[in-house]
Each structure stands twice: as structure tokens, then as C-alpha cells.
């Protein structure tokens, strides 16, 4: 029975990773860049919720609702300052710029909140404590259900947004061909800013769940980034539902790994990620750049 329980807990853990990875997947899907500060943005979200809870005593969920607009504004600012310039400057620049940003966020948090650990578990109400004992070896936590439900809800809402609304089509159009989008009246800069704002908001949701599920400190960002990136790669770069699947696969791999040895949980996730990476990206001669180059030359005429 413990195996089934491990898989179940893996699904709940995976739903958390999927929420964490969702923002990273959106920014890669729309702007083809990986934000190396994504984990730190999630942790920043957790800290903002923590501050609101400390000062107003409201529940973490209400505090999150209050923190959301702050995060959306931060998303716009992030896009207009760092990401905008780095988009036009080649493949390595976004990685280098966001890596620098990640160091800035971690150390600013360390300055304002000191290095010790915090948690939002206490202020999330009964959700964090209650669980049901389904059978002897199988327990289902309320928090797990909530995170899974919210994850499916978030991905569902994004699916509706992208396939049903005009703003969604505009975002997909810009993702597929920004130059052609400009020619039909779409301002790609504002689309990128909107995508970043959504990504940052969902990252903050990830930060909220991180705070409720376990603990966080100023330097927990990088670990979250690795899990988020692993979920995106396992699920297939650029595919939204793939990220949900990738997150769950990562969660299950980790809980199964934990059966072997507590330290082996994270290791199992890493090995799954490396295996998927080599299978998907490792094949064949590096012909792709040549093809892209040839196409680029033709349209430049």
C-alpha cells in the first residue's frame, strides 16, 4: 500500500511543482527565454504574503489575494527593465541578466528578512492540518487536494484564456511570429509585459504553496527554479499541459525515490530530468541552427 500512497503523495507534490513551473513555461512559450530568477520571484511572493500576514493577521490565502496586484506590477517592471533589452540581445544575455537578478533578489531578501527560515503553514488555517485516513496505508491531506485542484484550475483557466479570448489569441500569435503580429496591429512589447505579469503572479501562487507546504528562506529560490525547469523539460518545452504532466511526473519520481532512501528523492527527480533531456535534445547533428539561419536569410530579403 505504501507504493500507492507514495504515488498519490507524488501527484500532490507534482501539482505544486506544476504551479511553480507554470510561469516559467508561459515565459518560455511566449518569449523563448528561461528566467533564471523565476524561483526567487516565487520566494519573493511568499515573503510578501508573509509580511501581509504578519501585519494584518489575515489568512495566507487572503494575504495572497492582496499580494497579487503587487506581483503583477513587479512583473510589468521586470519585463520593461531587464527582459525587454535582453530579448533582443542573443541567446545568452537573458540567462546572464536573470542570473544576476536572482542574486540581487536573494540578497535583498536576506537584508530585509535575515537568513532564518519562515513558513506560512500556521496562517493557512485548517487546510494544512486536516487529512483523511482512507485505508491503513493511504492518507489524503486537505492541502494536497487544494493544491491539486488549484493547479488544474490554473491550467484550465489558462487554456480557456489562450483558446477562447482575443487576448489569448493575441498572445499565441505573438509567441508564434511577433513580426507578423506587429503587422496586424499587435504591440508585442505590451504582450510580453502581460505574459510576464501572468507568469510572476502564478509564480507567487507557487511561493504561497511553498510557504504553506514547507518552509522557505531568502536562498530557497534556486532549488525551486531547478524543480520548475525540470517539470517544464519533462513535460515538453513550450507546451502548457505538458508542464502540468511534467510537474506530476517529477513529483511521483521524487516520492518513489524517497522510498529507496530519503536523500534519494531529489536525486530520482534529477535523473528523470537528465534522461528526458538527453532523449529529447540529445539526438542528431546540430542542424537546427542552420535551418533557422536559412529561413532567416530568406525573409530578410
Amino acid at each position, binding site marked *: 500500500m505504501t507504493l500507492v500512497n507514495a504515488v498519490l503523495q507524488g501527484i500532490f507534490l507534482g501539482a505544486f511543482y506544476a504551479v511553480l513551473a507554470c510561469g516559467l513555461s508561459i515565459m518560455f512559450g511566449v518569449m523563448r527565454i528561461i528566467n533564471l530568477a523565476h524561483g526567487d520571484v516565487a520566494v519573493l511572493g511568499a515573503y510578501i504574503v508573509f509580511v501581509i500576514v504578519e501585519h494584518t493577521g489575515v489568512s495566507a490565502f487572503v494575504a495572497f489575494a492582496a499580494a497579487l496586484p503587487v506581483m503583477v506590477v513587479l512583473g510589468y517592471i521586470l519585463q520593461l527593465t531587464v527582459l525587454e533589452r535582453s530579448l533582443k540581445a542573443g541567446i545568452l544575455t537573458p540567462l546572464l541578466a536573470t542570473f544576476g537578478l536572482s542574486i540581487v533578489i536573494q540578497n535583498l531578501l536576506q537584508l530585509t528578512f535575515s537568513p532564518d527560515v519562515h513558513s506560512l503553514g500556521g496562517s493557512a488555517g485548517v487546510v494544512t492540518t486536516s487529512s483523511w485516513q482512507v485505508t491503513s496505508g493511504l492518507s489524503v491531506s486537505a492541502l494536497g487536494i487544494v493544491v491539486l485542484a488549484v493547479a488544474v484550475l490554473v491550467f484550465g483557466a489558462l487554456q480557456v484564456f489562450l483558446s477562447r479570448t482575443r487576448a489569448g489569441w493575441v498572445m499565441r500569435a505573438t509567441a508564434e511570429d511577433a513580426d507578423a503580429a506587429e503587422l496586424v496591429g499587435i504591440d508585442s512589447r505590451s504582450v510580453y509585459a502581460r505574459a510576464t505579469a501572468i507568469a510572476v503572479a502564478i509564480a507567487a501562487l507557487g511561493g504561497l504553496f511553498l510557504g504553506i507546504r514547507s518552509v522557505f528562506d531568502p536562498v530557497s529560490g534556486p532549488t525551486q527554479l531547478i524543480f520548475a525547469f525540470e517539470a517544464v523539460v519533462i513535460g515538453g518545452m513550450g507546451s502548457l499541459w505538458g508542464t502540468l504532466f511534467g510537474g506530476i511526473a517529477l513529483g511521483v519520481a521524487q516520492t518513489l525515490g524517497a522510498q529507496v532512501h530519503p536523500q534519494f528523492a531529489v536525486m530520482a527527480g534529477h535523473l528523470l530530468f537528465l534522461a528526458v533531456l538527453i532523449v529529447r535534445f540529445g539526438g542528431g*547533428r546540430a*542542424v537546427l541552427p*542552420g*535551418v533557422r539561419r*536559412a529561413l532567416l*536569410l530568406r525573409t*530578410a*530579403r
Partner: protein
Amino acid sequence: MSEAAVLAAVDVRKRFGALAVLDGVDLTLKHGEAVGIVGPNGAGKTTLLSVLSGSLAPDAGRIEFRGRDVTEKGAADRCKLGIARTHQVPRPFVGMTVFENVLVGATAGGRRRGADAYNVCLQVLDQCGLTHLANRRAEGLGLLQRKRLELARALAVEPSVLLLDEIGGGLTDAESAALVETVAGLRAGGIAVLWIEHIVHVLMQVVGRLVCMDAGRIIAEGAPEMVVSQAAVIDAYLGTGA
């Protein structure tokens, strides 16, 4: 007959998504022969050149070098065999000087070392009129100088096949005459030349055979005067206008 051909494309096909860019192309290039390729925009000329040089892998068909199948060999290995190319839009190594750019061709593709490599480079720089710019960083070169650098780098490989991609565009009459003379000299030296160019009258002065491509296929091939006058060629350029 193929062993006489120094480079051959056999039924080469290539698609970009739904677009069939090369739709079964057969082309042979003999030792010391110069062939011109013309055709409207999007006919697949540059793609064919990239498949011949190895920077693009064909979806189907074969590339043969002196009768041996080199389809699986990448651009670097084909260059070491003696197939050199220039790029339609010049791609200099901006952080290096003109001499150092040419040296890459001589040492990597040409496999020369030390003084041998330097001599090949100096000779090629002189041939392409770049000696006075040898120590200048390639970043500071004008467009025509960059085009000459493309040619010089390829020549430094001492190739047996040279693939030229619109190296003649934008030249003055004197410059294009000099280019024609250089290519004629190469032919005399036994180097086979495949030249994509739009300025038909420049090509006519030096190529022995002209090929016209349209929509991924060769639609006319033969003596230059005959090909240019063929209705199909003019239609390809100017349209049928049914």
C-alpha cells in the same frame, strides 16, 4: 560518368514544413568546370548550396564527392575534403583581423600549419585585394570588403570545389570584371566553381554551363546563351501571366 564529376547532387529533396524547397534536384560539377545558377527568389538556390556544403542535411537523395557518398559528412568534414563556400550575407569573424579570418580557412579546412599557412593566406589576400586590410578587425569592414573576405577565406582552404552565393551583387563594372577574372583564374587552376548570381551578364562571361531553378526544381540547363533565351527561364523570372 559520375567519377568524372568532382561534386554531384543526386535526386536531392528538402522540405521546410509544408514547403518543398528542393524537389528532386540532380546536378553534377566536373573538374575545373564553372556552372552558374539563376532563378527567382525562393527557388531553393541557397538551400541547394547549403545541402552541397553540408550545413544542411537533405531529407532524401545523395551528395557525392569524386564518386564517394558524403551525404552523412558535416560541413567541417566536407570542407576538409575540399568543398568551400561563401555566404549570401557575409559572416566575418568580427573579433578577429582579416588575416586571422583567412587563417581559419587555411589551418582548419586547408590543414596547413605555420609558415605554409601564412603563405597561403598572404597569397589569397593579395589575390582578393585585401592585403592592405590584413591587420584590421573584420568588424570594421564595408560590405564589399566583407564579400571579398568571404571569397578569400574560402580560397584559403585551397578547395577543389568552390560554392559562391551571390558574391557579385553591388559591384562596380571594374570590380565585377576583376571578380570574373579571379573566377576564370580559378577554373584554369582546376577548381570547380558553382556560382549563384542574379546579375546574369556577369555570370555569362565566365560560366561554361547555366542552370535555372524554380520552385525547388531545375527547369533549364545548358549553354548560357541558350538557357537565358529559353521561354521557361524568362517565365520563371517574369511570370507566365496567363
